[in-house]
C-alpha cells in the first residue's frame, strides 16, 4: 500500500528546493523538467549500478545540471525567468524521454522501508512514523535544516536579503548573482532527487512523463506555504493525502468516473491557489524581488 507520506515526499522535496530558490529572488518554473530528468537519470543510475544510493545521486546531479542551464540563462544572460522556466520543462520532458527510452520496461528493487523493531510495530502509528523508506525521513530532515539555515544563520539572512532587494544587497557588496546561482542549484538538486524518488521508491520502474505535473504542484505549494518552511510540510502532506485518497476511491469503485478522481489533485491545486491568494489579497508575502532580472553595473 502506498502511504500518504510516500506520496507527499516528492512534492516536499521539490517544493523545499524551490522555496530556497524563490527566497533568493529567483522564480524557476522548470521544476517539472528538472524532476523528470532526475527521474530518468535516477532510474538509469540505479538500474545500471544496482544501487539506490547511486541512483539518487545521479538524479541529484542531473537536477543540478539542468538548474545550471537555467542559472546561466536567467542570471548570466538576464533572460526572463518565466520563459526560461517553461523552456527548461519542455527540454526536460524531451531529454527524459531520450535518456529513459532504454529503461522503459525494466524493474529495480525499490528503496527498502526502514524497520525499527518495536517502534515500527506499534499499531497504526508505528508503521507510519517508523516504517517508511529513508527518503521520507531525509525530506523531513531537509526542510528542518532549511528552516534553521534561513532563519538562524548569517548565510540564510544574506539569502533572504537577496530575495528582498537585490540592489541593496549588491550595494552592501554581496555577490547577488553568485548567491542566487547557489540557490538555483540547491533547487535543482532537490528537484532531481524528488524526481528520482518516483522510480526509486514510489513505483520501481520508469515511464515517460511519470512526474505527471508534480513539479507544478510543488510550485503551487510554495505559494500555498507563503514561502515558509513549516507550512510547506503541511501543504505537501495535504496534497499527498489527496493523491492517496483518490487512488483509494478509484480502487473502491464508487461509480464516480476514474478520470474525475485523477483530476482531483489538479483541481485541488487550483482551488487552494485561489483560496490562499484571496485570503492574502492586499499584502503579498512573496519575496519582494521574486522573478525580477538583476544586472549589476560595474
Amino acid at each position: 500500500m502506498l502511504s500518504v507520506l510516500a506520496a507527499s515526499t516528492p512534492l516536499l522535496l521539490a517544493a523545499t528546493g524551490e522555496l530556497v530558490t524563490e527566497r533568493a529572488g529567483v522564480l524557476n518554473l522548470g521544476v517539472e523538467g528538472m524532476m523528470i530528468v532526475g527521474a530518468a537519470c535516477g532510474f538509469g543510475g540505479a538500474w545500471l549500478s544496482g544501487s539506490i544510493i547511486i541512483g539518487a545521486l545521479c538524479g541529484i546531479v542531473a537536477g543540478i545540471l539542468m538548474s545550471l542551464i537555467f542559472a546561466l540563462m536567467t542570471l548570466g544572460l538576464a533572460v526572463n525567468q518565466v520563459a526560461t522556466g517553461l523552456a527548461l520543462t519542455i527540454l526536460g520532458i524531451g531529454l527524459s524521454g531520450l535518456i529513459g527510452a532504454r529503461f522503459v520496461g525494466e524493474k529495480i528493487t525499490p528503496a527498502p522501508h526502514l524497520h525499527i523493531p518495536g517502534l515500527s510495530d506499534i499499531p497504526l502509528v508505528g508503521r507510519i512514523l517508523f516504517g517508511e523508506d529513508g527518503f521520507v525521513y531525509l525530506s523531513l530532515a531537509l526542510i528542518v535544516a532549511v528552516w534553521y539555515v534561513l532563519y538562524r544563520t548569517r548565510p540564510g539572512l544574506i539569502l533572504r536579503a537577496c530575495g528582498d532587494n537585490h540592489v541593496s544587497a549588491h550595494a552592501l557588496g554581496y555577490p547577488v548573482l553568485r548567491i542566487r546561482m547557489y540557490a538555483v542549484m540547491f533547487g535543482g538538486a532537490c528537484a532531481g532527487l524528488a524526481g528520482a524518488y518516483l522510480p526509486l521508491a514510489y513505483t520501481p520502474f520508469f515511464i515517460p512523463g511519470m512526474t505527471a505535473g508534480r513539479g507544478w504542484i510543488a510550485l503551487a505549494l510554495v505559494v500555498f506555504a507563503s514561502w515558509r518552511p513549516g507550512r510547506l510540510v503541511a501543504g505537501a502532506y495535504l496534497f499527498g493525502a489527496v493523491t492517496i485518497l483518490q487512488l483509494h476511491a478509484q480502487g473502491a469503485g464508487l461509480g464516480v468516473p476514474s478520470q474525475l478522481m485523477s483530476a482531483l489533485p489538479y483541481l485541488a491545486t487550483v482551488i487552494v491557489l485561489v483560496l490562499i491568494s484571496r485570503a492574502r489579497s492586499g499584502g503579498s508575502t512573496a519575496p519582494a524581488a521574486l522573478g525580477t532580472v538583476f544586472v549589476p553595473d560595474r
Partner: protein
Amino acid sequence: MSDLSPAALNPGAVPLLRTVGLTKRYGSFLANDKVDIDIWPQQIHALLGENGAGKSTLVKTIYGLIQPSEGKMHWQGQPMVLSGPSEARAHGIGMVFQHFSLFDNLTVAENVALGLDGAESFKDVSARLEQVSRTYGLPLDPKREVWQLSVGERQRIEIVRALMQDPKFLILDEPTAVLTPQEADQLFIVLERLKEEGRAILYISHKLEEVKRLCDTATILRGGKKVATCNPKAETAASLARMMVGGEIKKVKAAASRQIGVPRLVVNDLSLLPDDPHGVRLEHISFELRGGEILGIAGVAGNGQDELFAALSGERLSKDPLTVVIDGQSAGHLSITQRRKLGAAFVPEERLGHGTAPRMRLSENALLTGHAASNMVQHGFVNTAATLKTVDRATETFDVRKAKRDPEAASLSGGNLQKFIVGREILRQPGVLVVNQPTWGVDAGAAAVIRQALLDLAARGAAVLVTSQDLDELAEITDRIAVMFHGHLSVPLPTAEASREKLGLLMGGSSIEPTTEAPHAARA
C-alpha cells in the same frame, strides 16, 4: 581661490585618501575623467556637481562598488585596490546611500547585521546597535521592520550601520534631500561631532547654503571632470553654482501680473485608503486651486504625496465624485482618461516606468497620454503621423535634445526626458496641471526651462499644482504653499509668508504656533 587645504597648511602630511587620475568609462562615455581628490581627517569635504556630473560614480568607486577603468587610490599613503565594499569597510570607509541600501521586509537589527562583516553574534549586534544609537542620539527600535519606518528613521539606520563599523571616513550621498530643515539641523550636529572625533566626511549635496555652513573643503565636478577645489565658506552660493554649471543660470521670470481666475481644481474632504499595505492613508484633504495660480505642496517623501497624485490623476478612484472637481465637473469617480478629457494633465515623479514606457519610442509615449483627447486615435486606429507631430512640437518648443527623431524614452538624459514629458502635457493646453517633483534629478538648464514652462502655463490661465521636496523650487514659482504630513494637508500659506522654519515645522508634523518637537515617524 585661496588654498586652505591641510596639505598647504601642513606640508609633508599624508591625506587619509588620495585618488590619482581616477577614470571610469562606460563604452565611449566618461563618467569620471581623471579625478584627483584628497580627503583629510577631521574635515567635512563637500562633493558638488550637477546631476550626471559623476558624483555617484566617484563615491561608488571609492566604496569599491565600481572598478575604475584607470587611476589609483592611496589610503594613508599606501596604494589601495578594492574588489568590493567589504574591503572598503575593512579599510574604515563607510557609506550612507542616497537611495538607501535597506531591506524593507527585514528588521532594523537584521539590516544592520547585513552591513557588518564581522562574526559578531546577532545578539551582540543588537546590543551594540542600541548603544551606538544612544551615543549619537539616533534612536531606533531594532525589532521593527523597515517598511514601517519613516524616511528619516530609515536614514538613521544607514548612519548607525555605518557608524557601527567605527569608520575613519564616512561618505554621505545627498543625506538632507529627504529631511525636514529641522531634521537636517540634527544631522549636522551628528556630523560635527563625528568630525570632532577625527573622522573624515565626504558630503554630497547640491544645497549650497548647507555646504557653505557645514563643509571645510569643496570639490566641484562637471561632466565627469574635477573643475575646482575650494573653501566653500569663502565662496558665495552663486559662485559655487557657476562652477557647477559652467556658466550663468537662467533666472525664471514670472509674468508681471497673473490674473487669478475661477476655481479650476477643487478637492473636497478627500480621504482614501492606500492600495499598497505599505502606503499612506489620505485624511480629509481639501483645497481650492484657481486659474492662473500655482499651488505648491511641500513635505518629506512618503507622507502621502504619491497617494494624493494618484487620487487626483484618477489612477486611484474615490467613491465620492465630489471629492475631486475639475473645472466644475465632479470627477472623483472618473478614470484618468476621462479626467484628461476634462482638460486635466498630469506629470508623475518617476520619469521612466511611470511617466513613460522606457523601452518605447517617444511617439508611442506621446500616444500614452495623448490618446485620451486628441486626433491621435481614429476609429480605434492609431494615427502615427499625429503622434510624431507631437514629438516634433515638444522637441522644438522645449529644446529636447536627442540623437534621432523618434528614439526610445530610456535613451534620453533625465533632463531631456523630463522636458519631453512636461512638453507633451503642456502642448495639450491643459486647464489643470498636476505635477509631482517637476525637476527632480534634472540639470539646472532643464530645470529652468521646466519652471518657466509652468509659470507660463499659469499665466495663460491654467491652474497648476506642484508637489516638490525642494523648498527653493517652491519658493521660486508658487503663489501659495501647503505641507503634507501623514496624509494630512495643511492650510496653504502665501509663499511670501512661508519661511523655511514654518514649513519645516509643518513638515515635521507640528502646527505652526507650538514649537514642541513632534515624532518623525510616518506610519500608515
